[in-house]
């Protein structure tokens, strides 16, 4: 990597009470790179992802996305509310449980960020939101409320909502873990499409076959440390560490992606 990475994380530490969840994590994501974070539950991968957009404030180390860098730990001042908000506006996040706004229609969900955060005119935001909904294949659901959508559709709306902020990077926090198996494919397809368009992404996932297809780098975490890191195919096909091997033995690692039957 000759170019400076888009995301740069150094010596990151985080504890919840006496439980140290992240122990000295370093991570680089190149511009346009797709990094998959895998590992058993409790390994710290979701916390690491949430540290990238500072939904979780680290105890030590530094986080840089694009030109904005925050340092944490002794002597470092905690970032104020405004600069945190400005920083988060440049990173999109997709949650395991969608977290769509139930009191708004699909279209209003997608317009909310542009209108409230970017102060975009309603008419422009409407156009942008409809374009994003069309991109995830849900243009005709614009006026429906989230409660009427399937899990896969909800998650695609959540992706459209994040994309409407035109973020530099996208973070996916187990985006398919709460979905029925037959709905996983439609969401993975959208993520794959984003990857092919050159979006910089960090993906926490249990879909090993998907990680192998879409990610160019893979990070295996356990107990708050990075156990193994490398090109996704290499790590999945020939893991060096015994812990990685043990974890991967629980999964089908290759094969086709689940069929995407609802992207239309």
């Amino acid at each position: 990597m000759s170019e400076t990475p888009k995301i740069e994380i150094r010596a990151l530490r985080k504890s919840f009470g006496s439980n140290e969840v992240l122990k000295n994590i370093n991570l680089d994501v190149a511009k346009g790179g797709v990094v998959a974070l895998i590992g058993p539950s409790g390994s710290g991968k979701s916390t690491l992802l949430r540290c990238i957009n500072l939904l979780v404030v680290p105890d030590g180390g530094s986080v840089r996305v694009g030109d904005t860098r925050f340092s944490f730990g002794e002597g470092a001042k905690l970032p104020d509310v405004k600069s945190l908000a400005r920083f988060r506006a440049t990173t999109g996040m997709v949650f395991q449980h969608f977290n769509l706004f139930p009191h708004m229609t699909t279209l209003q969900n997608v317009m909310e960020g542009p209108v409230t955060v970017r102060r975009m005119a309603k008419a422009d935001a409407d156009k942008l939101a409809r374009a994003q909904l069309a991109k995830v294949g849900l243009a005709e659901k614009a006026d429906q409320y989230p409660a009427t959508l399937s899990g896969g559709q909800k998650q695609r709306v959540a992706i459209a909502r994040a994309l409407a902020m035109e973020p530099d990077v996208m973070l996916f926090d187990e985006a398919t873990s709460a979905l029925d198996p037959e709905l996983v494919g439609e969401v993975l397809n959208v993520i794959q499409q984003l990857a092919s368009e050159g979006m910089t992404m960090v993906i926490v996932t249990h879909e090993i076959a998907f990680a192998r297809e879409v990610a160019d780098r893979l990070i295996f975490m356990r107990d708050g440390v990075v156990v193994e890191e490398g090109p996704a195919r290499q790590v999945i096909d020939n893991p060096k560490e015994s812990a990685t091997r043990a974890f991967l033995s629980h999964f089908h690692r290759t094969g086709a992606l689940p069929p995407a039957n609802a992207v239309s």
Partner: protein
Amino acid sequence: MYQWDFGILWSYRWLFLNGLGVTIGFTIVIVVCGLLFGLLGAFGSLSRFRALRLLALTFIEAFRCTPILVQLIWFYYALPILAGVEMTPITASALALSLYGGSFYSEIIRGGIISIDKGQSEAGAALGMTPGQSMRRIVLPQAIKRMIPALMNQSIIQFKNTSLVSVLAVPDLVYQSQVAAHDSYRPLETYTAVAVAYAAILIPLTIIVRRGEKRLAVSE
């Protein structure tokens, strides 16, 4: 057997109407001010700052855990001596009832806000909203829907609590009916009529609240 004679009350109709007007006006004032105190109390108790949280909780518990009758008398007789401000009975009782109602409204509003899934404000934050924006745009619109039935119930209680201001000689419905009862020597008729008047106003209101609860339950 007692001989009921409600006809005698007709000559006091202007007195009753006057009292009813004061009662309703008083209710409007203490519901509006109470909601204002309630909002302050709720946001204070959810504040990031410890001192504010402590202040809000002290206010809430002080008014929630003492009887309203004691508060009314204390605000009229004790506060002027301690603070050196003279208050009319109306000001003293409006203040006491607003603060008392506010302490209950606080708990309802706070409960409504914390009942909204944390993922909602996280999603707002992830979009780049400040905590204030996500409270206004995301959390409150959902929370208010859940609070409305409880807020309405508390306001009904507030309406009934106004009857206590008669002890400070505020000329509300109960106070005026005391006057009528003494004058006519007909306390049974008078207080029965007053009870009916309160019920006649509150029963339709409770029906509206119950309908509202059902509608909200369906839409969620």
